[in-house]
């Protein structure tokens, strides 16, 4: 605990206005990420994991979004207090992002090189080391340098013949290659924090593991902190050092991957793990979690998981449970944490 965390999200509350009313979509998210840590954020669709990622880059359109409270400390500075220009100074160059669908996240009308060069030039304006050319260098020199950096980055993410492929259009690449291009775009500004929102969901299983291996290598080489948003616990087990499980806008359990997967302590985490099909399971024996995700416009007053929880007691419905430290940074927001109750 010597080095302060790179990113420290403290009690973040976010609401979204919709036709039906105001939904309290993030209700006190706490997450801190250090360099060299890969945090997997898991949860089902709509649990707020992507919103958490987008909030860090301040890319949630507001309105309809409204931050009700909390802070997002990045290098000690609260991102929620920055204006758009201040955020732009961080995006790409301090905070990189990779999104889910590589087919829709590259601009189809431009060569990939064009897009990479512009990202490199924008990042270079904040950190002149990126291109390594003098500040007074002319436009032409800077563009040429940016192109060289782009070729190097493409090669780094495993694109063969990068010097030629850089002039190709996105539709001339396969899905996996496009995701590599997006990773290159996110890395070209040498960010300290990388947020990857379901980077492998749209890809084949075999390509998935290649991309995960690539990301792992990048984290090692660049000493980044990473937030890997996914709904796949297998991806977490394979690629992450830490994991945070989200449910209905709250992080219900978090900690080092090994401890958490060995000893899941929140009932939701256990249900999530029980629902993973394994090769031994016979047809018709897949376990699901009964009930539905709560309506966030009128969320339950107490624990948001209580309505679906088999062990919920009166106390669980009284107020939101505070995270309990189970040792070694393993936290669970539950009044009765621990696998002991599993038998019940």
């Amino acid at each position, binding site marked *: 605990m010597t080095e302060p965390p790179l990113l420290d999200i403290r009690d973040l509350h976010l609401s979204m206005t919709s036709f039906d009313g105001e939904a309290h979509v993030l209700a006190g998210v706490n997450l801190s990420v250090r360099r060299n840590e890969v945090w997997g954020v898991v949860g089902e669709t709509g649990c707020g994991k992507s919103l958490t990622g987008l909030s860090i880059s301040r890319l949630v359109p507001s309105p309809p979004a409204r931050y009700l409270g909390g802070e997002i400390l990045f290098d000690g500075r609260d991102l929620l207090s920055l204006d758009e220009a201040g955020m*732009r100074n961080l*995006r790409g160059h301090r905070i990189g*992002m990779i*999104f889910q669908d590589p087919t829709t*996240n590259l601009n*189809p009308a431009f060569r990939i090189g064009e897009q990479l060069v512009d990202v490199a030039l924008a990042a270079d304006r904040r950190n002149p080391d990126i291109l390594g050319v003098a500040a007074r260098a002319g436009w032409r020199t800077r563009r040429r340098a940016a192109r060289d950096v782009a070729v190097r980055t493409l090669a780094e993410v495993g694109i063969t013949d990068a010097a030629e492929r850089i002039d190709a*259009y996105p*539709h001339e690449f396969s899905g996996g290659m496009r995701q590599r291009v997006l990773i290159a775009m996110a890395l070209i500004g040498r960010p300290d924090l990388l947020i990857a929102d379901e980077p492998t969901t749209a890809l084949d299983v075999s390509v998935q593991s290649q991309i995960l291996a690539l990301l792992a290598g990048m984290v090692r080489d660049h000493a980044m902190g990473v937030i890997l948003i996914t709904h796949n616990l297998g991806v977490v087990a394979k690629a992450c050092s830490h994991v945070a499980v989200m449910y209905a806008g709250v992080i219900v359990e978090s900690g080092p991957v090994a401890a958490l997967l060995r000893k899941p302590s929140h009932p939701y985490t256990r249900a999530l793990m029980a629902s993973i099909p394994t090769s031994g399971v016979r047809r018709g024996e897949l376990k699901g979690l009964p009930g539905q995700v709560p309506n966030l416009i009128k969320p339950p007053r107490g624990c948001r998981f209580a309505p679906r929880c088999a062990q919920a007691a009166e106390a669980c419905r009284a107020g939101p449970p505070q995270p309990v430290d189970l040792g070694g940074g393993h936290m669970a927001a539950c009044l009765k944490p621990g696998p002991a109750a599993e038998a019940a």
Partner: protein
Amino acid sequence: MLLTIPVLLGLTVLVFAIGRLLPGDPVALAAGPNATPAEIAAYAREFGLDRPVWVQYTSYLTGLLGGNFGVSIFTRRPVIEDLIAYTPATLELVFAAMALAVLIGIPAGLAAAVYRDRWPDYLSRVAALGAISMPRFFLGLLLQLAFAMWLGWLPLGGRFPLTDDPPRLVTGFLTVDALIAQDLSAFWTACRHLAMPAIAMSLSPLATIMRMMRASTLEVMQQDYVMTERALGLSQRLIVTKYVARNAISATLTVIGLYFGWLLGGTVLVETIFDWPGLGLYATKAVVTQDFMPVIGVTLIIGTLFVCANLVVDVLYGVINPKVRTE
């Protein structure tokens, strides 16, 4: 592209038939009020109009293959000569109007989308509604009243003063020819004559292009790649003017192509009001006297230009959208 030929052939049949089915006797009209029936018959024979319609039609078609568009029964001039003289004037007007519409409409549409629901957007909406609702000829008259009659800044009509020598004919576009001849005062004169009719013609396509550009820009701004571009630190200005604009223009391009054809056909009123010596004015005079050869000639020329405009649009799609190019 091969479809052009049957389309143009169909046009000739249609116009030929309509010309003959209309009531009235163009030959008698052309021969003059005092002509005797014998003189009228002789006149008809001179132009081959006494033959059956299908014979006239086939001989017209064979003539077309040799570039012969027939002869006006009024002026006795070959239609092709008139077309060569008038087409550049119309094209110059249409190009000028289209350039105004595109150069103002596209940035204005982009701005309206970026400043959605703020004053640039409201301003553009009101202006577009006004521009679309205003009939071109009425706008033309208002312009003449304001700029020619009251303010006296611009000439009332015409293309070039009859008293001056126009620049040496090269392209037929007076503005271009003046530049080629390096005659700046002639260029200025040509521009002053071109201004009002071009503005009158441009307003309606300008409004439509602006609205289309606004709609497609709003759609493109919702795309995932725009989020990625923002997330990676590109400035809003770069994203909008470079990455969004190119994607948004391709939808607007279709409208531009269609409007080009619409303007070609729509020059009639504006050319009449501004006394602009182009195809529209020429066709109006021919229609009034039921002089069919010029009418068919103008129809064919406008049809061909329309097809060419759409071909250019198809090629531009490929330039803007690399996916179209490879397919």
